[in-house]
């Protein structure tokens, strides 16, 4: 039986096409992926991301524990801020990519839906010896993302005085506010490459907030968006997706996420292996490419060197809606990852030429102070 978010009925009523995703029955699209994609790039789109996992970490050793299990420097996240981080295995493979929010007295850790059980077990296992309390708040809280250049102006006009302060919320900042009479933890985070906000609140308010947020601004200003647009929006700015660009068999240096690994912060799970990988340099790396030949590269298609030898695979690929051409990301031997390198992607048994280009394909438009 697939799990459903508190908004399942609302999605169906809005005409969403539902699909299985990571054990959840989720909307893949409402009006159409391309239309929803453009809505977020040009205005605002609302996503139900209640399927993601939300864990609270508190107690005297909360920070020390997180320092031990994640690769980023948790001591550098002040209260009211958040950070992207990685959970790594002792061999450096990525268990999951996460977001850590530092709120008063505790940390909120947001993990991928498909990895929720695995991550929960991983955190429990590594919590031994730390005076720390973990709480899985995934079912108790719902989570929405309002993303796009119009998101701030729309939210400032939401019914509630406190939301007027949102304009001052910094990039990756997190604050407790109230909106439509409900307590909401709001963060200037998201995964679309646009300015935007993520909202956490008690699950029983989900339908009310979904409806009220969709009604902000002139009719049609906020479009409901599904997983299809979420994927195409994260793909253009080359934001990693678990199971594609990152996995337990891919390390952060291969995934070009070395900036998330703070080797100088002290010991943590995977540090030794990661230091060794960094010192010798990764043998393979993610490379963004454009198609020179005809066709669309898709996830898992083989990558062939020009000699014909199979040397890697496509991690994500699609026609990029904002850029108007088929693009892809592939895991290839490091020398092939240099800009201008060429290789073939095997598209339905036929090699099609691809050329490595600069990543990200689309420069994120975050609102930074």
């Amino acid at each position, binding site marked *: 039986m697939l799990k459903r978010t508190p908004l399942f009925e609302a999605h169906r009523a809005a005409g969403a096409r539902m699909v299985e995703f990571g054990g959840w029955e989720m909307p893949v*699209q409402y009006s159409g992926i391309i239309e929803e994609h453009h809505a977020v790039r040009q205005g605002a789109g609302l996503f139900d991301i209640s399927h993601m996992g939300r864990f609270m970490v508190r107690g005297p050793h909360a920070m020390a524990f997180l320092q031990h299990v994640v690769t980023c420097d948790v001591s550098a996240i002040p209260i009211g801020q958040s950070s992207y981080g990685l959970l790594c295995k002792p061999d450096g493979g990525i268990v999951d990519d996460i977001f850590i929010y530092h709120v008063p007295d505790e940390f909120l850790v947001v993990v991928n839906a498909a990895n929720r059980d695995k991550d929960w077990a991983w955190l429990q296992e590594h919590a031994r010896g730390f005076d720390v309390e973990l709480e899985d708040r995934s079912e108790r809280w719902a989570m929405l993302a309002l993303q796009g250049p119009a998101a701030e102006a729309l939210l400032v006009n939401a019914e509630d005085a406190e939301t007027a302060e949102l304009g001052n919320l910094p990039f990756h900042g997190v604050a407790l506010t109230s909106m439509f009479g409900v307590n909401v933890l709001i963060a200037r985070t998201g995964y679309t490459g646009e300015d935007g906000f993520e909202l956490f609140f008690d699950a029983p308010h989900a339908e009310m907030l979904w409806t009220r947020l969709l009604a902000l601004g002139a009719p049609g200003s906020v479009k409901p968006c599904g997983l299809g647009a979420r994927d195409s929006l994260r793909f253009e700015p080359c934001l990693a997706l678990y199971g594609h660009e990152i996995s337990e068999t891919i390390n952060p240096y291969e995934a070009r996420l070395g900036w998330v690994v703070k080797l100088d912060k002290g010991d943590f799970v995977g540090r030794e292996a990661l230091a060794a990988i960094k010192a010798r340099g990764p043998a393979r790396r993610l490379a963004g490419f454009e198609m020179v030949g005809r066709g*669309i590269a898709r996830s898992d298609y083989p990558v062939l060197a020009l000699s014909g030898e199979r040397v890697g695979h496509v991690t994500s690929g699609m026609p990029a809606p904002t850029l108007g051409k088929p693009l892809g990301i592939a895991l290839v031997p490091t020398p092939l990852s240099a800009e201008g390198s060429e290789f073939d992607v095997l598209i339905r048994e036929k090699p099609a030429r691809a050329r490595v280009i600069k990543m990200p394909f689309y420069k994120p438009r975050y609102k930074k102070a």
Partner: protein
Amino acid sequence: MSVIPADLRYSKSDEWVRVEGDEVVIGITDYAQEQLGDIVYVELPQVGATFAPGESFGVIESVKASSDLYAPVGGEVTAVNSALESDQQPINSDPYGAGWLIRMRPSGEEEELMDAAAYAAYLEGRAH
């Protein structure tokens, strides 16, 4: 609810077949275009190519996925809808009209094809 014209026949892989004289016109069904979503690319065969029933004659790509097109009948391609090379939108907006894919001169062999009622029941069965 998907549109299923009564005068066509349908394959299990969601192609439709319309008999016109001694030729057939082939496209994908309204259900298929709905499932695919926005179609962004289509690869069709050359005129003169021959296919056995069930053989892949082309590819259709949406933002999310790539799908093979299967010949519901065997035969030789006599025309392709080349307008779709530059604009695939008709496949989404008019799958039984301007969104047609190819014309074939059938060889007589064909897949097991369904009439509209059987195809409707087949789709209903897939929804559960």
